[in-house]
């Protein structure tokens, strides 16, 4: 095996240049660089390979690498665009971009739909909605009677499933969200607008300085 001579430092797979990411997301170049600092921290917490593994994601979200959560799994899977089981830097920035206050609403609506389409059938089925409600109740240590859960699920479905075929399709979801805008409130992280202020403790490194860090 020969050595590969490269002009720049060896980067982890999935690394994309900040300038490119800034041009294709709502972030500025310095914001992407700040996200790189964050990404390095998250991706080295358990396995130091420049990639965010599920356990590292769980550790970051819940302070517990073993804490399982249906919704965190969905977020992780959607961030893992290439479906190779890890979140790479490019995927991280592009997915977070959808949560930026300036991201197109249509992107947020579509992302939310995919989040809730648990089995990725292209529809949100009644069973999936019920499963998610139960998962939320379970996560919160709250038990509601079967009747109440059914009432909640039915009420929601009746509102959203306008053609009554027992599942919510992307069009119905779009209409439903337009009537209930707060449904995609969790798709916006306001502080993404001030990322460089949110990390005063991080030194913003330029690309040249990063040459000192091993990938």
């Amino acid at each position: 095996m020969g050595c590969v001579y490269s002009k720049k430092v060896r980067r982890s797979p999935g690394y994309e240049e900040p300038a490119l990411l800034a041009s294709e997301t709502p972030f500025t170049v310095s914001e992407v660089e700040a996200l790189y600092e964050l990404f390095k921290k998250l991706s080295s917490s358990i396995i130091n390979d420049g990639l965010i593994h599920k356990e590292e994601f769980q550790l970051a979200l819940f302070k517990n690498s073993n804490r399982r959560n249906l919704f965190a799994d969905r977020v992780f899977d959607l961030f893992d665009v290439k479906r190779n089981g890890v979140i790479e830097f490019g995927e991280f920035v592009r997915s977070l971009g959808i949560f930026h206050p300036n991201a197109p609403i249509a992107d947020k609506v579509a992302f939310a739909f995919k989040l809730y389409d648990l089995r990725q059938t292209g529809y949100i089925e009644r069973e999936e909605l019920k499963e998610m409600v139960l998962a939320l109740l379970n996560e919160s240590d709250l038990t509601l009677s079967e009747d109440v859960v059914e009432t909640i699920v039915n009420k929601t479905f009746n509102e959203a499933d306008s053609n009554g075929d027992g599942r919510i399709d992307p069009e119905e979801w779009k209409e439903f969200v337009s009537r209930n805008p707060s449904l995609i409130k969790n798709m916006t992280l306001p502080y993404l607008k001030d990322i460089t202020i949110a990390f005063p403790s991080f030194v913003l490194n330029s690309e040249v300085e990063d040459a000192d860090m091993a990938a």
Partner: protein
Amino acid sequence: MNQSELKVKQSETLNAFHIISLSEGFDLSPLFEEKKREEKEELRFATTKPASSVISKLEDLAKSVKFSVRKSESRVRLEGSERGRKGKLSIEAEIFAMTPSFLVVEVKKDGGDTLEYNQFCSKELRPALKDICWTSPAENPTPA
């Protein structure tokens, strides 16, 4: 159950997706903040107690800390009497009915200093509401 006591907001009704969005799995802010969850500005919790219980708990709390109370059917506003760093601290709680036996309460800072609000939430508000709302397993010392 007095369903007529509570009006769901006319423009938007609460549904299962609102409940699901309460999940910690969707809350990415811990990736960015060192702060613990309790220090966030907006507090949302669910309860199976009737709205009247929530309102009377808030009224009791207000009395104990000498805050004034203004309430309507689904909103309670608490205001401090002393001027803090940014004026009087005021907090608004809004109650949404999913079903007669399942409510979501959203508490927000309405005015005043955020730090004082956060302290009020952790020292006064959360303890007062502890037995009517659920806490996530992460906040409980005992395993789920």
